[in-house]
């Protein structure tokens, strides 16, 4: 409709601001027994789901924020709230100084949204036609359109499926085309909900590179959810964890590792199949002569451990590395799972 006026917004500062946002849903809980048919019809049972329970955070311009949490934590709900599809039950959401629901038409011209499992492409048309459609509906100036088409074709590799019908694209090709399309109007903020769904290693990398390039310019803010923690750690400096609708962590990945135990690994190769016993390090497993240990937080003294091992048998080779981020996260999720209060969804 009206070209978004970018002039009015400051080059830095807060762009996303969520203040004690709550979102509740009602879900039908029908009984599956045939004799309950009438009850289901006339007196259905509901349960209330608190998808978000008072979440507050702010995001500054140019930040790349990973938004993570287990299934059903409320990630997609948050993205919908931020993109103007849903209104919060209580609390306030302000993005770019606007209310996403009330100022929707003005607002969505300045953001881009991608849901990994949905597509904006026209099913029976080539990708190029969908892009043209977007140009007209979003009222994108020709120069910007051509430039961003170039980005989509060169960096995301949409060029190869340029004239292919959307219905005949593979999942990954479709995702790339969708990402490229979301970028066409050069949004100031990108909300990506599982954007790497179905992408292969290379495509993930190019998507990562694109986001990094964007964030390097400092003008685009990105909020991305994913279940692939490695990818998130590469992409984002900051991660927000949400669990059962509560904000559980907000900070950078390094402090996350510190806070939840920076688990490191020590691998020893010795000349015997019996692992040396090392107090303070937990044996994870042995493969032949290779023995892997888990080391607790940052304080473990590796030199002392090596000396101790050397006293028991000759050590042929030593490796230490950080535990994969997935493992850190799995540890966190498990911890949450155990401590989850009863009766919540």
């Amino acid at each position, binding site marked *: 409709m009206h070209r978004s006026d970018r002039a009015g917004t400051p080059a830095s500062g807060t762009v996303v601001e969520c203040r004690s946002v709550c979102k509740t849903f009602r879900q*039908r809980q*029908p009984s*599956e027994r*045939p004799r309950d*048919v009438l009850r*289901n*019809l*006339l007196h*259905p049972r509901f349960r209330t789901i608190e998808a978000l329970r008072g979440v507050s955070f702010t995001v500054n311009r140019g930040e790349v924020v990973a938004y993570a949490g287990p299934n059903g934590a409320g990630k997609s709900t948050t993205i919908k709230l931020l993109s103007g599809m849903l209104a919060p039950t209580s609390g306030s959401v302000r993005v770019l100084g606007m209310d996403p629901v009330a100022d929707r038409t003005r607002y969505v011209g300045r953001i881009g949204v991608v849901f990994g499992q949905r597509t904006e492409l026209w099913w*029976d048309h080539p990708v190029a036609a969908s892009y043209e459609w977007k140009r007209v509906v979003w009222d994108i100036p020709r120069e910007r359109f051509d430039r961003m088409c170039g980005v989509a074709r060169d960096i995301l590799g949409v060029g190869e499926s340029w004239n292919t019908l959307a219905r005949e694209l593979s999942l990954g090709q479709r995702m790339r085309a969708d990402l490229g399309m979301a970028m066409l109007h050069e949004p100031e903020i990108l909300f990506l909900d599982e954007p790497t769904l179905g992408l292969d290693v290379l495509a993930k990398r190019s998507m990562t590179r694109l986001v990094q390039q964007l964030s390097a310019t400092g003008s685009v803010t990105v909020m991305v959810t994913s279940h692939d923690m490695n990818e998130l750690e590469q992409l984002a400096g900051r991660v927000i964890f949400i669990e059962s609708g509560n904000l559980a962590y907000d900070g950078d990945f390094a402090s996350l590792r510190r806070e939840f135990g920076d688990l490191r690994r020590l691998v020893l190769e010795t000349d015997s199949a019996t692992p040396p016993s090392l107090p303070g390090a937990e044996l994870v497993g042995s493969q032949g002569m290779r023995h892997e240990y888990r080391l607790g937080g940052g304080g473990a003294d590796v030199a002392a451990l090596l000396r101790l091992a050397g006293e028991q048998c000759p050590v042929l080779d030593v490796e230490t590395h950080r535990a994969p981020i997935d493992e850190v996260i799995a540890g966190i999720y498990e911890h949450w799972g155990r401590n989850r209060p009863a009766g919540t969804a």
Partner: protein
Amino acid sequence: MNARALTAACRRTSALSAGAMLGENPLFLLTYLLRLLRLAALLAIWRAVFAARGQVGGMDVEQVLTYTLLAGILAEPLNCRTGLDRSLWEGAIVTRMLQPMGLVASFVSEMAGRWAVGFAFCSLPMLLLAPLLGVDPWPASAAAAAWFGLSLALAIVVGVALDFLYGAAIAVLKTDIWMLDGMRHAVALLLSGAVVPLALLPWGLGRWMQWLPFGALASAPLQIYTGAGDAPMLLALQAFWALALCLFGRWVWRLTRERMVSYGG
């Protein structure tokens, strides 16, 4: 899969699909109210058309009213829709092919589940309301009733076979279903005699149209029920179409199976 297991699977599928219809809320009953309204309107129009006439095309007004009532009551079985077209279009057919019970059984039992709901909440009330609507719901004779049962069964077989052929056509043409659906609805309604009995068409058109497979869908059983047709001849014709279309459908289906799986999704 043995017969016991198959029956069990079909029953479970029917129950699920009936449950899915019932599951949400009683609002869907409005659909049936609309059907009743349509029936009432058609009955009134027939009365007006026949106002000053005795018999037309071998049918009197009573017969036409019974015919229309029954067409309303049995709207679903007289125009089988298995949902195959949608399933093909959406690519959901692949999961059906993974079910051990077979495509036909799977679709038909699902359809039966929907019918059961329609029967309980719409057909039965319509039948009970018949006297209020001033229509005699009884078959022409005991023999007609017996023949009618057989005829209805054949009509369903023909309907399912046509539905599967239609599905094969969609898969081969790779076209979208909305366009074809409108055409199919209009054509089937006209040619099957579900709205206007074939005998009442001008220029003896009906005599020719009854030989088409569509006639086996609605016209034949309804004619038999109202005693307006020659039962053995109609049944033989229906049996012929049932056999021919099933064989043909099997053949086409084998031929196009591959295209169907790759279609959609």
